[in-house]
């Protein structure tokens, strides 16, 4: 198949799976809603009066207050994490770089948790008002990304062992920090921190969804614009520079981009690991490594993955809402092993 044909096939598959995922998530739940009612309700919201729309206000509010914001949040957060993963892999030149694995997510979670516990007591935190968690998640994520970057880059190459060890160290430190905050926090903060550690899309509100979408769309556009530069970066930093890329600026800009995308996802949904690892990898296998297509398809793929993961999270155990971060790690962990094994077979490990 030519690259164009592969791209078209992938777009088609993603579009079908996306629509199916959104529709399934809308109709499945404690309150069963028919596809016709979903369609009718959406059309009515678009100003098209129709006979399909549900008359029952409970159905209407289930859709618009509970399910739709959650679905859109899943799409946005999945897209943000998958794009963050692809960008990270591009600047590290390594498919194992991922916000969750190398500690950016836990750095962001620590920031967010600190904002919650310190809350009204510390002027710096209070100054940001209701945005404090988001801002601190971003700062925590940014610090973690910078740390990972400067620890594991030497002479223009990523030292993979150092990259992963730095990730372990940051995850351990952030884990301890979260445990400490858990210890000193009051019971309300504790509940929220546990939520961050596990990750959940439960209780997504439109206001938060709006912010996540805004940051994700902006990040996606920037990443797509930088995509050609990321292709050149695959040749190594020196060669990229010889082809006219300002590598330093690209790196720093991309680090901020990764921290923003991860921070906004973590701030409202907690740590959802491995999305940024699994999605770009599968997309690369399907359509090749060229970054513009990879980033755009990863955004959709990440959204689709989280819509289904979330559907599973809230239906697999009846009456319970499982943490989605736990689910993605259950799938992502073994996938990580698979990547390691594959690399070992090909070139004898990462050392």
């Amino acid at each position, binding site marked *: 198949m030519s690259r164009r044909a592969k791209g078209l096939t992938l777009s088609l598959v993603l579009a079908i799976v996306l629509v199916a995922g959104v529709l399934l998530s809308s109709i499945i739940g404690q309150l069963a809603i028919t596809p016709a009612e979903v369609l009718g309700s959406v059309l009515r919201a678009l100003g098209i009066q129709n006979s399909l729309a549900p008359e029952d206000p409970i159905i209407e509010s289930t859709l618009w207050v509970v399910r739709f914001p959650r679905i859109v949040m899943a799409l946005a957060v999945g897209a943000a994490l998958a794009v963050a993963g692809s960008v990270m892999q591009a600047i590290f*030149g390594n498919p194992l770089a991922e916000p969750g694995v190398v500690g950016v997510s836990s750095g962001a979670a620590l920031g967010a948790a600190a904002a919650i516990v310190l809350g009204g007591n510390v002027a710096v935190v209070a100054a940001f008002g209701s945005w404090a968690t988001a801002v601190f998640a971003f700062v925590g994520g940014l610090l973690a990304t910078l740390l990972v970057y400067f620890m594991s880059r030497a002479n223009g190459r990523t030292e993979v062992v150092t990259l992963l060890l730095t990730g372990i160290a940051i995850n351990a430190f952030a884990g301890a920090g979260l445990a400490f905050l858990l210890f000193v926090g009051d019971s309300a903060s504790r509940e929220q921190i546990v939520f961050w550690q596990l990750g959940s899309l439960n209780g997504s509100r439109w206001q938060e969804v709006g912010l996540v979408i805004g940051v994700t769309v902006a990040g996606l556009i920037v990443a797509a614009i930088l995509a050609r530069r990321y292709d*050149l970066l695959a*040749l190594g930093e020196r*060669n990229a520079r*010889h*082809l*006219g890329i*300002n590598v330093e600026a690209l790196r720093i800009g991309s680090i901020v981009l990764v921290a923003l995308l991860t921070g906004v996802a973590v701030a409202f949904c907690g740590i959802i690991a491995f999305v940024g690892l699994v999605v770009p990898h599968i997309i690369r296998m399907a359509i*090749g490594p060229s970054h513009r297509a990879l980033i755009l398809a990863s955004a959709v793929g990440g959204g689709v993955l989280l819509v289904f993961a979330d559907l599973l999270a809230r239906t697999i155990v009846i009456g319970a809402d499982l943490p989605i971060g736990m689910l993605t790690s259950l799938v992502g962990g073994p996938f990580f092993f698979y990547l390691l094994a594959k690399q070992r077979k090909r070139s004898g490990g990462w050392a």
Partner: protein
Amino acid sequence: MNQQIHGAPILRATDVTVTIDSNRILEAVTLDIVEGELLALVGPNGAGKSTMLGVLSGDLSPTSGSVTLEGRALSSFSHLELARRRSVLTQENHVSFAFTVADVVEMGRSPWVKTPQLADDDAAIDDALRTADVEHLVTRHYGSLSGGEKARVSLARVLAQRTTIVFLDEPTAALDLRHQEEVMRAAAQLAASGRAVVVVVHDLSLAAAYASRVALIAGGQLDAVGTPAEVFTAERIERVYGLAVEIVERGGRPVILPLRY
């Protein structure tokens, strides 16, 4: 090839000194790069050839001394301006992710995006693929190639960039006999078409056969610069390399043979 085109120097390094961690790598080197000329940079391991290439290509700022391109300080050029004027083949070339040979060579065209030269893309890529003898590899993944094939694909990428100045750092190192000759011939042809080509090579006979001018660097200093016949004398090579050689002449060019007892 014997009729050299001696134009005005496009790139001039004057009194260039490079000190890294209190080690003097280059000392007061002055060298002009001229369009239409194939300049071979030769010298023993660790003499400072790659550092010199780094200074000339703008990768490295000299500790003292100046480098000017088209009469302007090299450091005042933006990355993109430089990429449209000079291309560089580095010694080692590693490509992350499964990019194909076609992808990699096409990347050589990227400095010309949004310029009228973009129209030359297909011709530039085809020429480069043919010159580097990698047309049959275009659909292969770069990572699956042999060392010599990788080197030739990287060369094709550099050729596709179509710049006035071309730097080749040991382009023949991983190549078989035929491809060594072909690559040097291609470099000489580039020079004949008016480009300035700078090649770092270890094989002195290869340098002598194709270069219009040779610069011999030893111990961080420019030991000699001139035509191959001027630079490659038995005494000089013995002094610089610490190896006795015999020089024979073939087709007006010196051939350097180590004296083997």
